[in-house]
């Protein structure tokens, strides 16, 4: 039983790193997120609380830490060198050098955060819709609509059609947020 727990946690941590990497595109930032996530889990247990679904709990904490970090950056702004930004924005090469992967990497970064996290949690990490809803603390219907919008947006981006279509209301809102974030970073 103990070895099962260790094995399960080992797999969860690897999933968390993959998800954090997909969200941040920066290995240091991703590892910082995972580290903070595990620390918070330890504190939670030390406070006598019980974790029912460890995997869902860890993803929830990771998302919360990521959101906190984004909010902090928006408030304070960060200084980054042009070189490091270039490295971050460059899509990692696929082993088979498929252009589609690079395009998807770029398109994923254009998605609003709330669509991106749903697409990644379900499409990459294989979470059920119900678990994703628990992780993000939103109704399952919202998960499904964000998933659909996210995938359709990715498709339009990959087809180069995004410019020719009027953005939806939520997309507009998030675009404004993205602009604000970029402005604070700059």
């Amino acid at each position, binding site marked *: 039983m103990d070895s099962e727990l260790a094995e399960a946690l080992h797999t969860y941590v*690897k999933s968390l790193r993959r998800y954090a*990497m*997909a969200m941040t595109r920066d290995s240091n930032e991703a590892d910082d997120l995972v580290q903070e996530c595990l620390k918070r*889990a*330890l504190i939670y247990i030390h406070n006598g609380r019980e974790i029912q679904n460890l995997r869902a709990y860890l993803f929830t904490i990771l998302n919360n830490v990521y959101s906190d970090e984004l909010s902090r950056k928006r408030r304070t702004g960060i200084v980054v060198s042009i070189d490091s930004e270039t490295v971050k924005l460059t899509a990692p090469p696929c*082993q088979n050098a498929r252009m589609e992967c690079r395009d998807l990497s770029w398109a994923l970064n254009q998605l609003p955060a709330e669509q991106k996290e749903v697409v990644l949690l379900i499409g*990459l990490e294989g979470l059920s819709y119900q678990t994703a809803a628990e992780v993000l603390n939103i109704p399952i219907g919202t998960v*499904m609509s964000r998933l659909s919008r996210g*995938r359709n947006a990715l*498709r339009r981006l990959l087809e180069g059609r995004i410019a020719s279509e009027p953005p939806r209301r939520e997309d507009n809102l998030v675009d404004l947020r993205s602009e604000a974030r970029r402005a604070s970073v700059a």
Partner: protein
Amino acid sequence: VWPSRPDHQRDRREPGRSLGSHLLKEALLQAYVDDLLNPHRRHEVEHSLSEHPREAARIRDFQSQNHELHELFDRYFAASTPANIEALQRHLVKTLRRQRRRQAYGWMAAAALFVIVVVGAVIVGPPPAPPIPWSFDDVVNGMRTDIAADMKADLDAAGFKPIGTRQISKEPDVTQHVFESATGRRIMLYESAAAPEDQKRVNFSQEGAVSVLFWTNKDRAFTLVGELDHNSVLQVVSAVSGEHQADGLRAIVAPDDGVRQPTPIR
């Protein structure tokens, strides 16, 4: 899968953009992409897609997206974990194990309380108690092993014979052993893994005529519950964990030993 509509509506409907049951249909398609449908529903969707090539192309794109996400990011899953994260991971495993052991003690405490409050009368009552209820399901599911096969302790010297052992919790592992005296009086012995921080802990209390003793022996924790005098409690400890441990617990279980006359076992 598609809602039935008049032909003139269906023909003009752009795939993925119709109103009404659009959300339901879209949810089904997304669930199809994520392989969450049962075979029957999946077949229905595939049949519908075969009649809607534009929708089929859209769904294939979504499936490609999932595939490409893995191509992009799976190497981070395969990469080795940094030492600082691995250390935290090990710490978390240890903490979770400790938490599970504490839950085991919670089980034992709850079971002991149940015995004291609800079954107490059965322990004390002179007529022999009925056999421990068990069912065919218990045996099949491994929740009961017949006659104390797992309990090696011989409580004959204390006047008790084993009548049953049952696993009352698999996770955490908690086992209940039941012994009975010649007059039908029963005592319960709960056994589980001992948490490292509890390996020196001893706790003795009395609720009326019923004695409750918690002690540990190496990596096992025991809770004894029953109407027992001090000497009988120590005899049980001696049978379970050895005479040396019984002597070690004498000061706690029977501090007035030699003054108080033990009640003979009925």
